[in-house]
């Protein structure tokens, strides 16, 4: 028992012997968990360890198959999230659950509307509230127009605004810049000082170590350890999480030989799209991994989306994209996919898959999009065969291809998105934040898959906000700032300081 529990204070949340099963497979098995008032409790675990399931039980999204949940000492069974919210338990989801067609302010006030609402009043109040949190988001903006980081901020703001006594943050910092993370951690400390209890799920272990009072590690749906943060270090956590030390495996230290330039596959010349992409030019070569690094809002995702036909460049003088020495202009993703350009989105829930469809159907939909299906009509056997091949190749942990994607953990969902992309047999594949919200074990597997693609001669682009990831994967690094590529580094000369300097100055 940790020191925090030993003080004799009643836990605000307590789970006793909780088990949750999906399709007969236990996502959680006999898990005990306590959350004390005013504590920050980090919940860590590998991909599919059951972290999200556990928090969803607390937040009333799922009901436990067996076991008991106590809230302030009383046995509770929330039938829906709104019940949990009424009891002061709010959850900030890993993939944002905002209403896309409403404005930021409307989302913050959603569920707390008065009988009569004055929009202007809501905007002013929301503006003040966001400023008090140091979140630079325009409350009048429609959520669909926000980037992933800003959506995350709104999601956090909404939870705080509901004056919850328990807030569950599921990967809150994955999309935030270092400065925004700093603001977020200040907010967490402030909430803690106000007596709010926080459950904090993150794959950035340093963050968990820095901000938590206690850490609980889950593995394969089972409780492994709970202790004060002082009892842990990074390697110890990883050992608990995966049973082996992965630090060296994922982020290799020391120099490595970069891959040589292959044929020039893509040449982006003077590409422009509004204020997001401004006259940017760069080339992508086969047989190597090009890292694209930039701060949020530097136009890297938008550039990738234009290349892949997801977004459109400026109508007049929008520049030129040459793919395999041919000038191309894709108006939709489908012709881009058919030509061999595939974009793996950073927002997998919204753009990556059909969450209520099965793994097999999702991967097969990629094949259909590229017109690579063997039969003119949808073939169930081809779908299942494809699913088997890719779930095995990418080690997607599931019972069978029939499992719905929504039931998978973040890391396995990402593997499905990657499988869907690879099934399209791309020549150029763009990974946008490929390991966002993915645990360390799955990161190693996804990195390995990306390296294999480059070794097989594909042109690979990796967009990432996480510098160690870029430094570990890329053979050359392009840095974007204010909508254009401003610097290029070979991996032998790149340092984190140089890259950040180029990205900021």
């Amino acid at each position: 028992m940790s020191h925090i529990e030993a003080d004799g204070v009643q836990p605000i949340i307590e789970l006793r012997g909780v088990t949750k099963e999906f399709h007969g497979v236990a996502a959680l098995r006999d898990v005990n968990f306590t959350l004390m008032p005013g504590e920050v409790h980090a919940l860590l675990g590998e991909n599919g360890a059951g972290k999200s399931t556990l928090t969803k039980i607390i937040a009333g999204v799922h009901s436990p198959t067996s076991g008991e949940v106590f809230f302030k000492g009383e046995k509770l069974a929330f039938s829906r999230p709104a019940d949990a919210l009424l009891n002061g338990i709010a959850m900030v989801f890993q993939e944002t659950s905002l209403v896309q067609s409403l404005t930021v302010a409307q989302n913050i006030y959603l569920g707390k509307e008065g009988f009569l609402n004055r929009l202007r009043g809501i905007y002013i109040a929301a503006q003040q509230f966001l400023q008090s949190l140091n979140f630079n988001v325009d409350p009048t903006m429609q959520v669909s127009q926000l980037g992933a980081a800003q959506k995350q901020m709104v999601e956090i703001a909404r939870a705080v605004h509901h004056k919850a006594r328990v807030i569950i943050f599921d990967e809150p910092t994955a999309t935030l810049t270092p400065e925004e993370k700093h603001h977020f951690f200040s907010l967490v400390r402030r909430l803690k000082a106000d007596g709010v209890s926080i459950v904090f799920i993150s794959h950035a272990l340093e963050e968990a170590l820095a901000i938590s009072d206690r850490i609980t590690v889950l593995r394969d749906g089972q409780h492994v350890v709970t202790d004060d943060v002082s009892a842990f270090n990074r390697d110890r956590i990883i050992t608990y999480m995966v049973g082996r030390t992965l630090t060296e495996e994922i982020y290799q230290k020391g120099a490595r030989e970069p891959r040589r330039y292959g044929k020039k596959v893509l040449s982006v010349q003077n590409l422009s799209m509004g204020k997001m992409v401004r006259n940017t030019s760069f080339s992508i070569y086969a047989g190597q991994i090009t890292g694209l690094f930039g701060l949020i809002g530097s136009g890297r995702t938008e550039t990738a989306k234009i290349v892949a036909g997801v977004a459109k460049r400026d109508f007049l003088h929008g520049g030129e994209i040459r793919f395999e020495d041919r000038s191309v202009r894709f108006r939709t993703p489908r012709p881009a996919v058919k030509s061999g350009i595939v974009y793996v989105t950073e927002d997998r829930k919204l753009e990556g898959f059909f969450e209520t469809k099965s793994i097999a159907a999702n991967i097969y939909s990629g094949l259909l999009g590229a017109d690579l299906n063997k039969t003119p009509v949808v073939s169930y056997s081809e779908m299942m065969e494809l699913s088997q091949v890719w779930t095995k190749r990418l080690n997607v942990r599931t019972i069978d291809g029939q499992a719905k994607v929504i039931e998978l953990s973040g890391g396995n969902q990402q593997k499905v998105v990657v499988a869907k992309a690879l099934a399209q047999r791309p020549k150029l594949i763009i990974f946008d934040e490929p390991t966002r919200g993915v645990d360390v074990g799955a990161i190693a597997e996804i990195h390995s898959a990306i390296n294999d693609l480059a070794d097989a001669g594909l042109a690979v682009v990796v967009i990432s906000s996480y510098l160690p990831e870029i430094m570990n994967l890329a053979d050359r690094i392009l840095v974007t700032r204010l909508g254009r590529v401003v610097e290029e580094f070979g991996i032998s000369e790149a340092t984190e300081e140089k890259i950040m300097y180029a990205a900021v100055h």
Partner: protein
Amino acid sequence: MRGALRTFSDRLLGRGTAALTVPPLDGAWRPNNLLEDAPSGIAATVPDCLTLKEGRPVWAEGRRLKGADGEIETLPRTITAMASSSGGRFAIALDGAGITIDGQPQPALAQLSCVTALAFEDESTLWIAIGSTVNQTGEWARDLIELRRSGRLLRYDIGTGKPATIAERLAYPNGMVWTPDGMIVSEAWAVRLIRLAPSGKAVEIVADLPGYPAGLSQSASGGYWLTLFAPRSPLIELVLREASYRKAMMQEVDPVYWIAPALSSGQSFFEPMQGGALKQMGILKPWAPTRSYGLVVEFSGDFTPLRSFHSRAGGRRHGVTSVLEADGQLWVTSKGGGEIVRIALAEGAKS
């Protein structure tokens, strides 16, 4: 009809061929100062046509044939191209005076002018590149501005003394190197490299180069060296699409000040310059738009670019027209900078 409509809409919307874009210098083309910062070379007057003669590098300076030890020979006319074979044969093209092989004039080639490159296929076959059949050698900028495609490629059988035309309507063939699969030709105004078989069948090897290609030669590692004598720029691309402007420019402006690529630039404030900040705090930015540049690039055997040597905007060693690798050194003629530059390749690789 469809093509015409497409051209019209492209011009209207600034797309396709009217996009006015140039490929970026990145990857293996990433700018550096390896050419500019190479040790002092040999001062020369408009040097060109580097080749080997009796195993030693030689080059042309106007009418004079020179080597590292000094002048070898003075010829009656300006030397426009030279080539040597592995067996020791030596061919020289003189401006308006045909071609001599091992000192022997070739009557069948006496009328040729604007010969821009020579290359031996074997000891008995010489390939001849004629940049333009309309303009003279020195009028290459006019040839570009007039959008000519009047270049020709001849294959000359030395034994029989008969030339055969291999290809016509080329956009200023400017350099050649023989490979087992055919002759690689740099087509300057088409900014590409093509491979031509003796049958005349052409295949594009490298397209959309970032500059105007010139000399080609073989590298010791089994690849190839290419020089680009001037960079492409959006301004020049724009002028090339504006017929009336080009016509007026050619009529009214001194050719030195045309908006066209140049072998050297920055000597006069009359020169055209692209709007925007060329200088910051009194210093010319290395990435400023420039009409001249120095660039040598090494390709692998399958024409994948491996590395490059640059003399950037504001540099001296511009207008690089020929290149030769010999004894672990890269010999480069900077026609615009008036210098033969030697780069120790081991150092270049390290950089």
